[in-house]
Every structure is written in structure tokens, then in C-alpha cells.
């Protein structure tokens, strides 16, 4: 039998390249100042979905919540083999913590409907919280299998997977539908397929189209821009290249549970990490230098 998979993905700043200038005064991150990438473990989640589709058939829907620029990872997913892609973008999503994010995503997954397996990366490299997966499972009222490193068996009734439990592993089975969070050890994500890249390279979300028209027609009135965008969108839709874009109204989300209002956790303070030893000595790499240092450490009872 075929399985319908929904994969939740996130565009994240490449945290290996962060400087203080990338932070806003209010403690939030200025994402536009950083290179944005497909969250690594979300690629593993997508790969697992693709392997399920290769073996059993079915449909893969990818969803991301983010800024218009996050459309890039949706396109990337289409290049790799996803069937459908959805961007959730809405200014009222801003400042959502993991609880509000999981609520909004749960509205989107319910809207997609008819799913057998929901897949997330174990965690995103910007926050490293690993919370959205389990919270989403709770909101959908389905069981979760976290830290999946291998899919063992899948049949119409149940899914069996091996999960990493720190010092060791566990093989567990549960009924479908279920949510999996996938680790980086699970697989090696495939690269984009050239054919699909040709097919989807012009796929766009409505907001990308609108932004482009706005940039190219600085003199145009608001009404003109809207008209132009509408026209372009319908042309893309005919070719199957319009990426879906949903807002909170479309999701019929309760705004009390979204964005800043829906987020119990707030930022009190952000500090840059400054690490420095209080006192520091340079030691000559000579026998005497090293011997003196060892002597000092023994004197100080640090080594015995």
C-alpha cells in the first residue's frame, strides 16, 4: 500500500557563521544577515519519506513556516522528489516559540489531511530544542517515535523503527498515523535530480512573485501590482509551478495561540559568548618548560 507523508522542514541560519551583528536589539535574530540553509536533519526526514515513497508509493507534502525566502527550501524539496510544497507565511507568526509553532504547524497538517506518517528532523540547528516534533505529535493526538535512525518495517497497520536512546537503541512499533523525528544518522540525503530541477526551477510562491513585480515596477500602483501578480500566479498554476502559500486565516488558526501572544516563553536577555581564562601562561615546548609546568601542577595538587 501507498503511504502519504507530510514532512515539516525549516530554513535556518547557518549557525557556524554567526556574528554579533546578526542579532536584533530585542534579542531576536536578524535572519536576513545570515546565509540560510535547509536544516540538516530535515533533509534526513525528507530522505526517509522519499525512501518510503520509492518502496511503497504515495505522496510527499513538505511544509515550512517562515519568511518568503523559505520558498527556496520548498523548491529544493521538489528538486529532490517531493510532490507538493506549502509555505506558511504570515506576519502574525513572528516571534512564535516552539509551542506556538507546533500549534500553527498542526493546523497546517490537519488542513493537508489524510496523512499516514508525519516526519520532522530531530532538531533545528538554530535553536537545537528538538521540541516542535513531540509538541506537534501531541497536538495531532498521534504517537511519536523520536530520534529515528532506521525504519525497520512498514505495513498498513503499523510502523517499526529503531531509535537512538543515548547510550543504546530501542526498536519500537506503533500504529499509524504516527510522527517520527529523524536523526542525521538515519540516511544520506539524495541530491537534487537534474530532471526535477529543470521541471521546478521556475516554481514560485505567490509572495515571491509579488516581491519580484514590486521590485521591477517601482512606479506601479498597489492595484496594478496585485493585478500583475494575480495574472502571473494563474499562469504558473496552469503549469503546475505555483507553490502553495497559506496564511493563518486560511489555516483558521486561533490567533491566541499564534505568534508572540501564543508563546509563553519570552526572551529576557541575549549575551554574546566571551570565553577567556583569568590567568594565562605561555609554556616553552622544551623539556624544561614542560617539566616545570608538570611540577607546578603537582605542587598545586591538580595532578598527583
Amino acid at each position, binding site marked *: 500500500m501507498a503511504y502519504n507523508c507530510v514532512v515539516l522542514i525549516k530554513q535556518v541560519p547557518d549557525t557556524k557563521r554567526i556574528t554579533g551583528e546578526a542579532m536584533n536589539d530585542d534579542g531576536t535574530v536578524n535572519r536576513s544577515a545570515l546565509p540560510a540553509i535547509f536544516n540538516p536533519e530535515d533533509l534526513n526526514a525528507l530522505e526517509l519519506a522519499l525512501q518510503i515513497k520509492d518502496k511503497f508509493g504515495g505522496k510527499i507534502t513538505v511544509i515550512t513556516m517562515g519568511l518568503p525566502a523559505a520558498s527556496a527550501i520548498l523548491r529544493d524539496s521538489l528538486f529532490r522528489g517531493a510532490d507538493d510544497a506549502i509555505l506558511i507565511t504570515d506576519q502574525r507568526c513572528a516571534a512564535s516559540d*516552539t509551542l506556538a509553532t507546533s500549534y500553527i504547524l498542526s493546523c497546517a497538517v490537519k488542513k493537508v489531511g489524510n496523512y499516514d506518517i508525519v516526519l520532522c528532523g530531530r532538531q533545528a540547528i538554530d535553536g537545537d530544542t528538538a521540541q516542535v516534533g513531540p509538541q506537534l505529535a501531541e497536538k495531532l493526538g498521534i504517537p511519536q517515535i523520536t530520534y529515528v535512525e532506521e525504519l525497520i518495517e512498514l505495513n498498513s497497520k503499523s510502523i517499526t523503527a529503531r531509535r537512538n536512546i543515548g547510550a543504546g537503541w530501542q526498536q519500537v512499533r506503533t500504529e499509524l498515523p504516527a510522527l517520527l523525528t529523524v536523526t542525521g544518522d538515519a540516511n544520506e540525503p539524495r541530491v537534487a535530480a537534474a530532471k526535477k530541477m529543470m521541471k521546478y526551477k521556475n516554481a514560485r510562491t505567490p509572495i515571491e512573485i509579488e516581491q519580484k513585480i514590486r521590485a521591477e515596477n517601482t512606479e506601479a500602483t498597489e492595484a496594478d501590482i496585485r493585478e500583475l501578480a494575480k495574472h502571473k500566479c494563474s499562469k504558473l498554476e496552469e503549469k503546475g509551478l505555483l507553490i502553495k502559500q497559506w496564511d493563518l486565516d486560511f489555516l483558521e488558526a486561533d490567533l491566541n495561540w499564534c505568534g508572540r501572544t501564543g508563546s509563553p516563553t519570552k526572551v529576557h536577555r541575549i549575551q554574546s559568548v566571551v570565553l577567556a581564562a583569568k590567568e594565562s601562561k605561555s609554556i616553552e615546548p622544551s623539556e624544561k618548560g614542560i617539566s616545570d609546568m608538570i611540577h607546578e601542577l603537582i605542587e598545586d595538587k591538580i595532578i598527583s
Partner: protein
Amino acid sequence: MIDVNKQGEVWVFAEQHNGQLEDTPIELMSKAHRLADTLGVKLAAAVLGDGARDIATKLIHYGADKVYLAEHPLLGTYQTNSYAKVMFDLIHKYEPQIVLYGATAAGRDLAPRIASAAKAGLTADCTDLQIGDHQVTKNGDIHKNLLFQVRPAFGGNIIATIINYDRWPQMATVREGVMPMSEPDVSRKGEVIEEKVQISKQDLPLEILEEHKRPKKVNLKAARIIVAGGAGVGSKDNFQLIWDLANCLGAAPAATRAAVDLGFIDSDHQVGQTGTTVRPSLYLAVGISGAIQHQAGMSQSQKVIAINNDPDAPIFQIAHYKIVGDLNVVVPKMIKAIKEKSIKEEKTVKA
């Protein structure tokens, strides 16, 4: 979600498996004790399991004033849904103001499920906890005595302090190994409250078919001296230098993520943000450049010796002893010096 409730207790979720209490709740107890004292409330531990009474006593020795003991045959093995349901019920019954969990595999699986059901806040992977006041920028309101949940973010490049002033309880998972364990006091007395558990097979949607637990090959958290090697060591063969130096110091061998990824040593030995957090008396960093992710796991070491041939390596910023030089020359010299000193010491003792 429960209402803001300044009389609420401070709770620690006491993770146990097969009647064995994990280290993390014990680490949490001494910090949680200070938080409870500052707030003038009681410290309680919540234990779920089947046959966990001994653990309750142990928790009192480690500082709990009260232990909520939820025992049931179906709680014998940890499962997300069953544990989340029982914790959720306990939280709504007693309304603690703070609930802390270890950021273990189970803790990070469980806590978000509870937070979602309770519609409460949760901060992941904290490295410190404090009590403090917060002023809301928008309206100037001051919220007193909140839990400051301190955590690294963005790959350890920043430290964020997170608060939660309106939807309680304030909940956090806390990194393993970042809080020192205190000594148990076997004379301490406390109250054990036995809880009736409402639970059925339906709360156990997982079937655990097989489980393989293996003890970690090395206990880095307990090590007094750690010798760690990085990518600069060059090869698995050359990593023998790290083992040799560790052996003659009675130290635990460790490594950076880069060295583990290169296959120099097993991941049980990994120190850093994605590995173990350590706080030894002495940390020898050999051929380690000192990426912020690595520093996050070892910066609390009392003394750091760094050996690297690059004088600009960031590890030197936190080193007490800096040795700029080729590790293939420096480490053997160091081994020699240690052996000579220990022979001399022995002689002195004998005389």
C-alpha cells in the same frame, strides 16, 4: 496551563529506568534546592515507575522535601504518552511553579509532550537556572522572582536567558553534567506522597520490541583529569598519544566532534555541545582548535592546558597553560616529565 502561583513548589522530574535513578535528576536537586530556598517554597521530586520507593528515599537524601511517587505496573518502562499523562495530571493537581527535567533522550522526548498538553512554556537544554525579575518593555510591568532559563543558542554563539511570566508552570530541560552533584545526606527526612494513577493500555501506544543499552565506554563527567584530542592529532594511530598521556595521568581520554567524525575514537568520548559537558580539575586540549561548540562542553574546567601548533587557535583564549608547538614533540616530552616526577615522588615517600 496553570495560573501564576507564587506559592507553587519547585519540582524535579526524577528520571529512572528499571529502578535506577539517573544522574541528571541528582545534578538538578542541588540547583533546584537553591531555587526553592530563594523563593521560600518546598522542593519536590516526581517519580514515576513500578517499584520506585527506594528512589524516593534517595531523592530525599539529595535534598527533596517531598516526593510524589506514582507507581503502577504500566509505568514500569518509560513511554512518552503514559509518562506525559501522569505528569500532566500531577502538575494540574499540585500546580508547581517550576518543573525541571534532565535534557536526556527521555527528558527531551517527554517534556515537550507535557508542555504541549499543558499549553505551557518549555526551554530546552538549559545550562544555568537563576531567580530574577523581568520588566516587560511594552508596558513596564515588573514580574518578580521568575525562573531565568539560561541556554546557549545558535550553535553556542550566544547565551539566551528565557523567561515565562504568564503561563505556568515554568518548565525547562537541563543539560546533563552542567550542574555539580551534591553529597547525599542520609539523615535528611522528607515526605513521600503516594499518588493514585489513572492509566490504561491506551496510554501505551508504543510496543517496545527490543532494547539495547550499553554503558558508556568512559565516564567523562566523573573524570578529574581529561586528555582530549582534536582533528590536529592527525590519525587514529597517532591518537595513541592521547591514550598514552591519559594513562600516565590516570585521566579519561576524550575528543572533539571532529576527531570522532574522523573515526579517531568512539563517540562516547566526545566533549562539547553535542557530546558530554565536563568540569574536570584539569583539561588537556591536544591538537584542538577550540570551536565554540567544543568550548561549550569544557569551558568550566578548572585548569586548561592547550597544545597546538597554531598560535592563533581559539583554544588559547581559554587556556591557563599555552604550549605552541608540535603535539608529536610536546606530548612525548610531557609523558616523560610526568613519569620522572612520579618516580621522584615515590622516592620521597619511601624516604
